Protein backbone atom coordinates (compact mmCIF):
# COMPACT_ATOMS: atom_id res chain seq x y z
CA UNK A 1 0.00 0.00 0.00
CA UNK A 2 0.97 3.63 -0.42
CA UNK A 3 0.19 6.43 2.00
CA UNK A 4 0.26 9.88 0.49
CA UNK A 5 1.92 11.92 3.23
CA UNK A 6 0.64 15.49 3.20
CA UNK A 7 4.18 16.93 3.37
CA UNK A 8 6.42 14.15 2.05
CA UNK A 9 4.28 12.77 -0.77
CA UNK A 10 3.55 9.11 -1.52
CA UNK A 11 5.43 6.69 0.72
CA UNK A 12 5.25 2.91 0.96
CA UNK A 13 3.11 1.80 3.89
CA UNK A 14 6.00 -0.28 5.23
CA UNK A 15 7.59 2.98 6.44
CA UNK A 16 4.60 3.34 8.76
CA UNK A 17 3.36 1.56 11.86
CA UNK A 18 -0.36 0.96 12.26
CA UNK A 19 -2.16 1.57 15.53
CA UNK A 20 -5.90 1.45 14.94
CA UNK A 21 -9.11 3.46 15.00
CA UNK A 22 -8.49 7.21 14.96
CA UNK A 23 -10.84 7.56 17.91
CA UNK A 24 -7.85 6.56 20.07
CA UNK A 25 -6.80 10.21 20.06
CA UNK A 26 -9.96 11.02 22.05
CA UNK A 27 -8.76 9.73 25.40
CA UNK A 28 -11.44 10.36 28.06
CA UNK A 29 -10.90 12.65 31.03
CA UNK A 30 -9.60 10.61 33.91
CA UNK A 31 -11.60 12.50 36.53
CA UNK A 32 -14.95 12.68 34.72
CA UNK A 33 -17.70 10.61 36.32
CA UNK A 34 -18.08 7.07 34.96
CA UNK A 35 -14.55 7.53 33.67
CA UNK A 36 -13.98 3.78 34.16
CA UNK A 37 -16.86 3.09 31.80
CA UNK A 38 -15.53 5.68 29.36
CA UNK A 39 -12.00 4.28 29.45
CA UNK A 40 -13.30 0.77 28.90
CA UNK A 41 -15.22 1.82 25.80
CA UNK A 42 -12.36 4.01 24.55
CA UNK A 43 -9.80 1.26 24.97
CA UNK A 44 -11.73 -1.87 24.00
CA UNK A 45 -14.74 -1.17 21.76
CA UNK A 46 -14.36 -0.61 18.03
CA UNK A 47 -16.69 0.38 15.20
CA UNK A 48 -14.62 -1.80 12.88
CA UNK A 49 -16.51 -0.63 9.78
CA UNK A 50 -16.59 -2.46 6.47
CA UNK A 51 -15.86 0.52 4.26
CA UNK A 52 -14.49 3.93 5.19
CA UNK A 53 -12.26 3.85 8.26
CA UNK A 54 -10.37 6.66 9.98
CA UNK A 55 -7.23 5.15 11.45
CA UNK A 56 -3.88 6.04 13.00
CA UNK A 57 -0.54 5.40 11.30
CA UNK A 58 2.87 6.44 12.65
CA UNK A 59 5.54 7.43 10.13
CA UNK A 60 8.31 5.75 12.08
CA UNK A 61 10.71 5.57 9.13
CA UNK A 62 9.95 9.11 8.04
CA UNK A 63 9.08 12.28 9.86
CA UNK A 64 7.86 10.50 13.01
CA UNK A 65 4.45 12.06 12.64
CA UNK A 66 1.19 10.40 13.68
CA UNK A 67 -1.29 10.48 10.82
CA UNK A 68 -5.03 10.05 10.47
CA UNK A 69 -5.60 8.02 7.32
CA UNK A 70 -9.08 7.59 5.88
CA UNK A 71 -9.06 4.24 4.09
CA UNK A 72 -11.66 1.91 2.67
CA UNK A 73 -11.30 -1.45 4.39
CA UNK A 74 -12.84 -3.34 1.46
CA UNK A 75 -10.85 -1.83 -1.42
CA UNK A 76 -7.93 -0.44 0.64
CA UNK A 77 -8.34 2.82 -1.27
CA UNK A 78 -6.83 5.71 0.69
CA UNK A 79 -9.17 8.68 0.61
CA UNK A 80 -7.44 11.16 2.86
CA UNK A 81 -4.27 11.60 4.93
CA UNK A 82 -3.69 14.24 7.58
CA UNK A 83 -1.29 14.86 10.45
CA UNK A 84 -2.96 14.45 13.83
CA UNK A 85 -1.35 17.72 14.86
CA UNK A 86 -2.99 19.51 11.93
CA UNK A 87 -6.51 18.11 12.38
CA UNK A 88 -6.80 18.61 16.12
CA UNK A 89 -5.03 21.91 16.64
CA UNK A 90 -8.37 23.20 17.83
CA UNK A 91 -8.43 20.53 20.51
CA UNK A 92 -5.41 21.97 22.30
CA UNK A 93 -6.32 22.81 25.85
Amino acid sequence: MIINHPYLGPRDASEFVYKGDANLINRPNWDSKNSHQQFHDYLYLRDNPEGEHKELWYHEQGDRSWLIVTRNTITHEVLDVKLVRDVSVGKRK
Partner: protein
Amino acid sequence: MKYSALKIFLEGLTGNKGWKPVWREPEPKEEYDIIVIGGGGHGLSTAYYLAKEFGISNVAVLEKGWIGSGNIGRNTTIIRSNYLLKANQPFYELSMQMWENLEQEFNYNAMVSQRGIMNLYHNDPQRDAFVRRGNAMKLSGAGAVLLNEKELRKVAPFLDFDNARFPIKGALCQPRGGTVRHDAVAWGYARGADSLGVDIIQNCEVTGLNLDKGVCVGVETVRGPIKAKKVAICVAGSSSNLMRMAGLKLPIESHVLQAFVSEGLKPALPGVITFGAGHFYVSQSDKGGLVFGGDIDGYNSYAQRGNLPTLEDVCEGGMAIMPMIGRARLLRMWGGIMDMSMDGSPFIDKTPIDGLYFNGGWCYGGFKATPASGFCYAHLLAKDAYHPKAAKFKLDRFRRGDIIDEKGQGAQPNLH
Protein backbone atom coordinates in the same frame (compact mmCIF):
# COMPACT_ATOMS: atom_id res chain seq x y z
CA MET B 1 -25.10 -43.26 3.55
CA LYS B 2 -22.21 -44.94 5.35
CA TYR B 3 -18.79 -44.44 3.81
CA SER B 4 -16.32 -47.33 3.71
CA ALA B 5 -13.76 -48.99 1.49
CA LEU B 6 -16.40 -51.53 0.53
CA LYS B 7 -18.84 -48.77 -0.44
CA ILE B 8 -16.16 -47.22 -2.64
CA PHE B 9 -15.50 -50.60 -4.25
CA LEU B 10 -19.18 -51.23 -5.02
CA GLU B 11 -19.73 -47.70 -6.30
CA GLY B 12 -16.59 -47.98 -8.41
CA LEU B 13 -17.94 -51.10 -10.11
CA THR B 14 -21.19 -49.31 -10.95
CA GLY B 15 -19.50 -46.21 -12.31
CA ASN B 16 -19.80 -44.06 -9.18
CA LYS B 17 -23.38 -43.22 -10.11
CA GLY B 18 -24.99 -44.13 -6.78
CA TRP B 19 -23.46 -41.51 -4.49
CA LYS B 20 -25.91 -39.36 -2.57
CA PRO B 21 -25.51 -35.62 -1.78
CA VAL B 22 -23.35 -35.05 1.30
CA TRP B 23 -26.02 -32.66 2.58
CA ARG B 24 -29.56 -31.75 1.44
CA GLU B 25 -30.53 -28.36 0.07
CA PRO B 26 -33.78 -27.68 1.93
CA GLU B 27 -36.00 -24.62 1.72
CA PRO B 28 -35.90 -22.58 4.94
CA LYS B 29 -38.76 -23.35 7.34
CA GLU B 30 -40.80 -20.56 8.89
CA GLU B 31 -39.36 -21.12 12.36
CA TYR B 32 -36.55 -22.96 14.09
CA ASP B 33 -35.61 -23.55 17.69
CA ILE B 34 -32.15 -22.22 16.96
CA ILE B 35 -30.74 -20.39 13.97
CA VAL B 36 -26.98 -20.49 13.58
CA ILE B 37 -25.79 -17.61 11.42
CA GLY B 38 -22.67 -18.65 9.54
CA GLY B 39 -21.98 -21.93 7.72
CA GLY B 40 -18.30 -22.00 8.54
CA GLY B 41 -16.54 -24.60 10.64
CA HIS B 42 -17.74 -23.27 13.97
CA GLY B 43 -21.31 -22.75 12.80
CA LEU B 44 -21.58 -26.22 11.32
CA SER B 45 -20.01 -27.91 14.34
CA THR B 46 -22.32 -25.92 16.63
CA ALA B 47 -25.34 -27.23 14.73
CA TYR B 48 -23.90 -30.75 14.69
CA TYR B 49 -23.39 -30.84 18.47
CA LEU B 50 -26.74 -29.18 19.16
CA ALA B 51 -28.39 -32.08 17.38
CA LYS B 52 -26.04 -34.84 18.47
CA GLU B 53 -25.18 -33.95 22.08
CA PHE B 54 -28.13 -31.80 23.17
CA GLY B 55 -31.00 -33.29 21.16
CA ILE B 56 -31.94 -30.04 19.47
CA SER B 57 -32.25 -30.76 15.75
CA ASN B 58 -34.83 -28.15 14.75
CA VAL B 59 -31.86 -26.03 13.77
CA ALA B 60 -30.95 -24.03 10.66
CA VAL B 61 -27.49 -22.98 9.59
CA LEU B 62 -27.74 -19.88 7.41
CA GLU B 63 -24.78 -19.30 5.10
CA LYS B 64 -24.31 -16.19 2.99
CA GLY B 65 -22.39 -18.06 0.27
CA TRP B 66 -21.32 -21.70 0.13
CA ILE B 67 -20.62 -23.61 3.34
CA GLY B 68 -17.02 -23.58 4.41
CA SER B 69 -16.38 -20.33 2.55
CA GLY B 70 -15.10 -18.55 5.62
CA ASN B 71 -11.84 -19.13 7.40
CA ILE B 72 -12.34 -22.90 7.52
CA GLY B 73 -11.89 -22.76 3.77
CA ARG B 74 -8.76 -20.62 3.80
CA ASN B 75 -6.65 -21.47 6.83
CA THR B 76 -3.37 -23.34 7.20
CA THR B 77 -4.97 -26.43 8.77
CA ILE B 78 -2.94 -26.60 11.99
CA ILE B 79 -4.29 -28.19 15.17
CA ARG B 80 -2.52 -27.87 18.50
CA SER B 81 -3.21 -27.41 22.20
CA ASN B 82 -0.06 -25.61 23.30
CA TYR B 83 -1.42 -22.58 25.12
CA LEU B 84 -0.16 -21.09 28.35
CA LEU B 85 -3.07 -19.60 30.25
CA LYS B 86 -5.60 -21.42 32.41
CA ALA B 87 -8.49 -19.80 30.58
CA ASN B 88 -7.29 -21.16 27.23
CA GLN B 89 -5.30 -24.36 27.50
CA PRO B 90 -7.98 -26.72 28.88
CA PHE B 91 -10.37 -25.55 26.17
CA TYR B 92 -7.90 -26.19 23.36
CA GLU B 93 -6.98 -29.55 24.86
CA LEU B 94 -10.66 -30.47 24.83
CA SER B 95 -10.67 -29.52 21.16
CA MET B 96 -7.61 -31.67 20.50
CA GLN B 97 -9.26 -34.67 22.13
CA MET B 98 -12.33 -34.12 19.99
CA TRP B 99 -10.19 -33.97 16.82
CA GLU B 100 -8.76 -37.32 17.76
CA ASN B 101 -12.15 -39.01 17.56
CA LEU B 102 -13.84 -36.84 14.99
CA GLU B 103 -13.52 -38.89 11.81
CA GLN B 104 -14.84 -42.16 13.15
CA GLU B 105 -17.60 -40.20 14.85
CA PHE B 106 -18.99 -38.52 11.75
CA ASN B 107 -17.69 -41.16 9.33
CA TYR B 108 -15.70 -38.73 7.20
CA ASN B 109 -11.95 -38.79 6.73
CA ALA B 110 -10.72 -35.27 7.51
CA MET B 111 -7.15 -36.56 7.48
CA VAL B 112 -6.39 -35.62 11.07
CA SER B 113 -2.64 -36.01 10.97
CA GLN B 114 -0.86 -35.79 14.33
CA ARG B 115 2.68 -35.53 13.06
CA GLY B 116 3.67 -33.06 15.75
CA ILE B 117 4.28 -29.34 16.04
CA MET B 118 7.62 -27.81 16.95
CA ASN B 119 7.97 -24.23 18.17
CA LEU B 120 11.61 -23.23 17.82
CA TYR B 121 13.31 -21.20 20.55
CA HIS B 122 16.40 -19.10 20.06
CA ASN B 123 17.49 -17.83 23.47
CA ASP B 124 17.25 -18.57 27.19
CA PRO B 125 14.32 -16.32 28.12
CA GLN B 126 12.34 -17.89 25.27
CA ARG B 127 13.28 -21.35 26.54
CA ASP B 128 12.16 -20.42 30.06
CA ALA B 129 8.82 -19.21 28.68
CA PHE B 130 8.47 -22.48 26.75
CA VAL B 131 9.22 -24.54 29.86
CA ARG B 132 6.44 -22.66 31.62
CA ARG B 133 4.12 -23.23 28.66
CA GLY B 134 5.16 -26.86 28.32
CA ASN B 135 4.31 -27.42 31.95
CA ALA B 136 0.92 -25.80 31.44
CA MET B 137 0.36 -28.19 28.55
CA LYS B 138 1.31 -31.20 30.63
CA LEU B 139 -0.82 -30.03 33.54
CA SER B 140 -3.79 -29.98 31.19
CA GLY B 141 -2.95 -33.42 29.83
CA ALA B 142 -1.86 -32.13 26.43
CA GLY B 143 1.64 -33.49 26.59
CA ALA B 144 4.80 -31.61 25.61
CA VAL B 145 8.46 -32.31 24.99
CA LEU B 146 11.30 -29.82 25.18
CA LEU B 147 13.95 -30.65 22.58
CA ASN B 148 17.44 -29.27 22.90
CA GLU B 149 19.54 -28.47 19.85
CA LYS B 150 21.06 -31.93 19.64
CA GLU B 151 17.68 -33.67 19.74
CA LEU B 152 16.19 -31.18 17.30
CA ARG B 153 18.99 -31.76 14.79
CA LYS B 154 17.93 -35.40 14.65
CA VAL B 155 14.30 -34.70 13.72
CA ALA B 156 14.88 -31.62 11.57
CA PRO B 157 18.43 -31.76 10.20
CA PHE B 158 17.54 -29.31 7.42
CA LEU B 159 17.14 -26.39 9.83
CA ASP B 160 19.85 -23.75 9.66
CA PHE B 161 21.66 -24.55 12.90
CA ASP B 162 25.07 -23.27 11.96
CA ASN B 163 24.56 -20.01 10.10
CA ALA B 164 21.37 -18.55 11.51
CA ARG B 165 21.06 -14.90 12.50
CA PHE B 166 19.07 -16.05 15.52
CA PRO B 167 20.62 -19.38 16.50
CA ILE B 168 18.20 -22.31 16.83
CA LYS B 169 18.63 -23.62 20.38
CA GLY B 170 15.80 -26.12 20.50
CA ALA B 171 12.05 -26.48 20.32
CA LEU B 172 8.95 -27.00 22.39
CA CYS B 173 7.20 -29.90 20.75
CA GLN B 174 3.65 -31.17 21.01
CA PRO B 175 3.67 -34.62 19.44
CA ARG B 176 -0.12 -34.66 19.23
CA GLY B 177 -0.22 -31.42 17.23
CA GLY B 178 -0.60 -31.60 13.50
CA THR B 179 -2.84 -30.77 10.58
CA VAL B 180 -6.33 -31.55 9.29
CA ARG B 181 -7.79 -31.30 5.79
CA HIS B 182 -9.74 -28.12 6.46
CA ASP B 183 -12.49 -28.34 3.82
CA ALA B 184 -13.25 -31.91 4.86
CA VAL B 185 -14.00 -30.68 8.39
CA ALA B 186 -16.73 -28.39 7.09
CA TRP B 187 -18.14 -31.12 4.85
CA GLY B 188 -17.95 -33.73 7.58
CA TYR B 189 -19.79 -31.56 10.09
CA ALA B 190 -22.34 -30.56 7.43
CA ARG B 191 -22.90 -34.22 6.58
CA GLY B 192 -23.24 -35.11 10.25
CA ALA B 193 -25.58 -32.23 11.08
CA ASP B 194 -27.68 -32.79 7.98
CA SER B 195 -28.13 -36.46 8.75
CA LEU B 196 -29.43 -35.47 12.21
CA GLY B 197 -32.05 -33.20 10.67
CA VAL B 198 -30.33 -29.82 10.68
CA ASP B 199 -31.22 -27.61 7.70
CA ILE B 200 -28.13 -26.23 5.99
CA ILE B 201 -29.23 -23.29 3.87
CA GLN B 202 -26.65 -21.82 1.51
CA ASN B 203 -26.87 -18.52 -0.37
CA CYS B 204 -29.02 -17.19 2.47
CA GLU B 205 -27.44 -13.96 3.70
CA VAL B 206 -28.79 -12.51 6.92
CA THR B 207 -29.76 -8.88 6.37
CA GLY B 208 -31.17 -8.05 9.78
CA LEU B 209 -31.95 -9.27 13.28
CA ASN B 210 -35.56 -9.15 14.38
CA LEU B 211 -35.89 -7.78 17.90
CA ASP B 212 -39.13 -7.72 19.82
CA LYS B 213 -39.07 -5.72 23.05
CA GLY B 214 -35.34 -6.14 23.25
CA VAL B 215 -35.52 -9.88 22.60
CA CYS B 216 -34.12 -11.47 19.44
CA VAL B 217 -36.92 -13.50 17.82
CA GLY B 218 -35.52 -14.20 14.38
CA VAL B 219 -33.64 -12.90 11.38
CA GLU B 220 -34.29 -11.20 8.07
CA THR B 221 -32.62 -12.92 5.14
CA VAL B 222 -32.38 -12.49 1.39
CA ARG B 223 -34.83 -15.39 1.31
CA GLY B 224 -37.31 -13.75 3.69
CA PRO B 225 -37.74 -13.62 7.47
CA ILE B 226 -37.12 -16.70 9.61
CA LYS B 227 -38.31 -16.98 13.21
CA ALA B 228 -36.23 -18.53 15.94
CA LYS B 229 -36.28 -19.00 19.71
CA LYS B 230 -32.54 -18.35 19.78
CA VAL B 231 -30.17 -16.80 17.26
CA ALA B 232 -26.51 -17.76 17.38
CA ILE B 233 -24.03 -15.52 15.60
CA CYS B 234 -20.98 -17.43 14.38
CA VAL B 235 -19.40 -15.40 11.59
CA ALA B 236 -15.82 -14.67 12.70
CA GLY B 237 -14.39 -12.07 10.39
CA SER B 238 -17.70 -10.29 9.96
CA SER B 239 -18.77 -10.35 13.62
CA SER B 240 -18.87 -6.57 13.91
CA ASN B 241 -21.22 -6.31 10.93
CA LEU B 242 -23.72 -8.75 12.43
CA MET B 243 -23.57 -7.23 15.92
CA ARG B 244 -24.00 -3.77 14.44
CA MET B 245 -27.44 -4.97 13.31
CA ALA B 246 -28.21 -5.35 17.01
CA GLY B 247 -26.67 -1.96 17.79
CA LEU B 248 -23.71 -3.45 19.65
CA LYS B 249 -20.00 -2.64 19.40
CA LEU B 250 -17.44 -5.40 19.89
CA PRO B 251 -13.90 -5.53 21.31
CA ILE B 252 -12.86 -6.76 17.87
CA GLU B 253 -11.12 -5.50 14.74
CA SER B 254 -11.18 -7.30 11.39
CA HIS B 255 -7.74 -7.95 9.96
CA VAL B 256 -6.40 -9.84 6.98
CA LEU B 257 -4.18 -12.86 7.52
CA GLN B 258 -2.43 -14.22 4.45
CA ALA B 259 -1.59 -17.84 3.79
CA PHE B 260 0.59 -19.44 1.17
CA VAL B 261 1.08 -22.78 -0.54
CA SER B 262 3.94 -24.06 -2.68
CA GLU B 263 3.87 -26.39 -5.64
CA GLY B 264 3.52 -30.07 -4.81
CA LEU B 265 6.68 -31.75 -3.56
CA LYS B 266 7.64 -35.21 -2.35
CA PRO B 267 7.71 -35.42 1.49
CA ALA B 268 10.23 -32.93 2.87
CA LEU B 269 8.99 -31.85 6.31
CA PRO B 270 8.26 -33.96 9.42
CA GLY B 271 5.42 -31.93 10.92
CA VAL B 272 4.52 -28.35 11.73
CA ILE B 273 7.45 -26.02 12.43
CA THR B 274 7.22 -22.46 13.73
CA PHE B 275 10.00 -19.84 13.82
CA GLY B 276 10.55 -18.18 17.18
CA ALA B 277 12.48 -15.13 16.03
CA GLY B 278 10.48 -14.17 12.95
CA HIS B 279 7.10 -14.66 11.37
CA PHE B 280 6.98 -18.06 9.70
CA TYR B 281 5.29 -21.40 10.22
CA VAL B 282 5.02 -24.29 7.82
CA SER B 283 3.67 -27.78 7.32
CA GLN B 284 3.36 -30.03 4.30
CA SER B 285 -0.01 -31.16 3.03
CA ASP B 286 -0.78 -34.73 1.99
CA LYS B 287 -0.89 -33.42 -1.57
CA GLY B 288 2.73 -32.28 -1.15
CA GLY B 289 2.40 -28.50 -1.00
CA LEU B 290 4.26 -26.57 1.68
CA VAL B 291 1.48 -24.71 3.49
CA PHE B 292 2.91 -21.70 5.26
CA GLY B 293 2.11 -18.34 6.77
CA GLY B 294 3.21 -15.71 9.24
CA ASP B 295 1.92 -12.53 10.77
CA ILE B 296 -1.23 -10.61 9.85
CA ASP B 297 -0.79 -7.63 7.53
CA GLY B 298 -1.61 -5.45 10.52
CA TYR B 299 -4.27 -3.02 9.27
CA ASN B 300 -8.07 -3.30 9.43
CA SER B 301 -9.31 -5.03 6.31
CA TYR B 302 -12.25 -6.94 4.89
CA ALA B 303 -10.54 -7.52 1.56
CA GLN B 304 -9.57 -11.20 1.95
CA ARG B 305 -6.28 -10.36 0.28
CA GLY B 306 -3.04 -8.91 1.52
CA ASN B 307 0.06 -7.18 0.27
CA LEU B 308 3.70 -7.79 -0.62
CA PRO B 309 5.55 -6.81 2.57
CA THR B 310 3.93 -9.64 4.52
CA LEU B 311 4.59 -12.17 1.74
CA GLU B 312 8.25 -11.18 1.69
CA ASP B 313 8.56 -11.09 5.48
CA VAL B 314 7.15 -14.61 5.69
CA CYS B 315 9.45 -15.99 2.98
CA GLU B 316 12.44 -14.30 4.63
CA GLY B 317 11.51 -16.08 7.83
CA GLY B 318 11.29 -19.36 5.95
CA MET B 319 14.70 -19.00 4.35
CA ALA B 320 16.15 -17.89 7.68
CA ILE B 321 15.42 -21.26 9.29
CA MET B 322 15.24 -23.70 6.35
CA PRO B 323 17.29 -22.52 3.36
CA MET B 324 16.47 -25.74 1.53
CA ILE B 325 13.07 -24.35 0.50
CA GLY B 326 14.66 -21.68 -1.71
CA ARG B 327 13.68 -23.55 -4.87
CA ALA B 328 10.24 -24.55 -3.76
CA ARG B 329 7.90 -22.23 -5.60
CA LEU B 330 5.03 -20.26 -4.15
CA LEU B 331 1.96 -21.47 -6.05
CA ARG B 332 -0.84 -19.45 -4.49
CA MET B 333 -1.40 -16.82 -1.83
CA TRP B 334 -4.70 -15.77 -0.34
CA GLY B 335 -6.17 -13.97 2.64
CA GLY B 336 -8.83 -14.46 5.25
CA ILE B 337 -10.51 -11.99 7.55
CA MET B 338 -9.68 -12.46 11.21
CA ASP B 339 -11.75 -11.35 14.18
CA MET B 340 -8.80 -9.88 16.07
CA SER B 341 -9.88 -9.40 19.66
CA MET B 342 -8.47 -7.03 22.24
CA ASP B 343 -6.54 -9.68 24.16
CA GLY B 344 -6.08 -12.27 21.44
CA SER B 345 -8.64 -14.62 22.95
CA PRO B 346 -12.13 -15.54 21.73
CA PHE B 347 -15.70 -15.06 22.94
CA ILE B 348 -18.43 -17.65 23.47
CA ASP B 349 -21.14 -15.79 25.30
CA LYS B 350 -24.66 -14.47 25.53
CA THR B 351 -25.13 -10.90 24.37
CA PRO B 352 -26.93 -8.18 26.32
CA ILE B 353 -29.91 -8.97 24.06
CA ASP B 354 -32.01 -11.96 25.16
CA GLY B 355 -32.09 -14.73 22.59
CA LEU B 356 -28.97 -13.46 20.84
CA TYR B 357 -25.71 -15.35 21.33
CA PHE B 358 -22.22 -14.63 20.12
CA ASN B 359 -19.24 -16.74 19.08
CA GLY B 360 -16.22 -14.97 17.59
CA GLY B 361 -12.95 -13.19 18.22
CA TRP B 362 -10.88 -16.23 17.29
CA CYS B 363 -8.01 -14.19 15.86
CA TYR B 364 -6.04 -16.63 13.71
CA GLY B 365 -6.58 -19.52 16.12
CA GLY B 366 -10.06 -20.51 15.12
CA PHE B 367 -9.51 -23.61 13.04
CA LYS B 368 -7.98 -25.77 15.76
CA ALA B 369 -10.85 -24.75 18.04
CA THR B 370 -13.60 -25.85 15.63
CA PRO B 371 -14.83 -28.93 17.56
CA ALA B 372 -14.64 -27.47 21.07
CA SER B 373 -16.00 -24.11 19.95
CA GLY B 374 -19.05 -25.75 18.41
CA PHE B 375 -19.51 -28.05 21.37
CA CYS B 376 -19.20 -25.35 24.04
CA TYR B 377 -21.34 -22.92 22.04
CA ALA B 378 -23.99 -25.62 21.66
CA HIS B 379 -23.76 -26.21 25.42
CA LEU B 380 -24.40 -22.52 26.07
CA LEU B 381 -27.25 -22.39 23.55
CA ALA B 382 -28.92 -25.54 24.82
CA LYS B 383 -28.53 -25.01 28.57
CA ASP B 384 -27.97 -21.26 28.88
CA ALA B 385 -24.97 -22.22 30.98
CA TYR B 386 -21.29 -21.89 30.18
CA HIS B 387 -19.33 -25.03 29.50
CA PRO B 388 -16.72 -25.12 32.30
CA LYS B 389 -13.84 -25.20 29.80
CA ALA B 390 -15.11 -22.14 27.92
CA ALA B 391 -16.37 -20.20 30.91
CA LYS B 392 -13.85 -17.38 30.64
CA PHE B 393 -14.58 -16.34 27.04
CA LYS B 394 -16.95 -13.60 28.12
CA LEU B 395 -17.71 -10.36 26.33
CA ASP B 396 -17.53 -8.29 29.53
CA ARG B 397 -14.19 -9.60 30.72
CA PHE B 398 -12.43 -6.32 29.98
CA ARG B 399 -14.70 -4.43 32.37
CA ARG B 400 -13.51 -6.68 35.15
CA GLY B 401 -9.92 -6.74 33.89
CA ASP B 402 -10.09 -10.50 33.52
CA ILE B 403 -7.82 -10.39 30.48
CA ILE B 404 -6.71 -13.54 28.61
CA ASP B 405 -3.59 -12.18 26.92
CA GLU B 406 -1.30 -15.03 25.81
CA LYS B 407 1.11 -12.68 24.05
CA GLY B 408 1.06 -9.89 26.64
CA GLN B 409 0.43 -7.21 24.05
CA GLY B 410 -2.48 -5.36 25.58
CA ALA B 411 -5.49 -3.80 23.92
CA GLN B 412 -4.04 -3.67 20.42
CA PRO B 413 -5.51 -6.38 18.19
CA ASN B 414 -2.89 -6.30 15.44
CA LEU B 415 -0.16 -7.24 17.94
CA HIS B 416 -1.82 -10.47 19.05
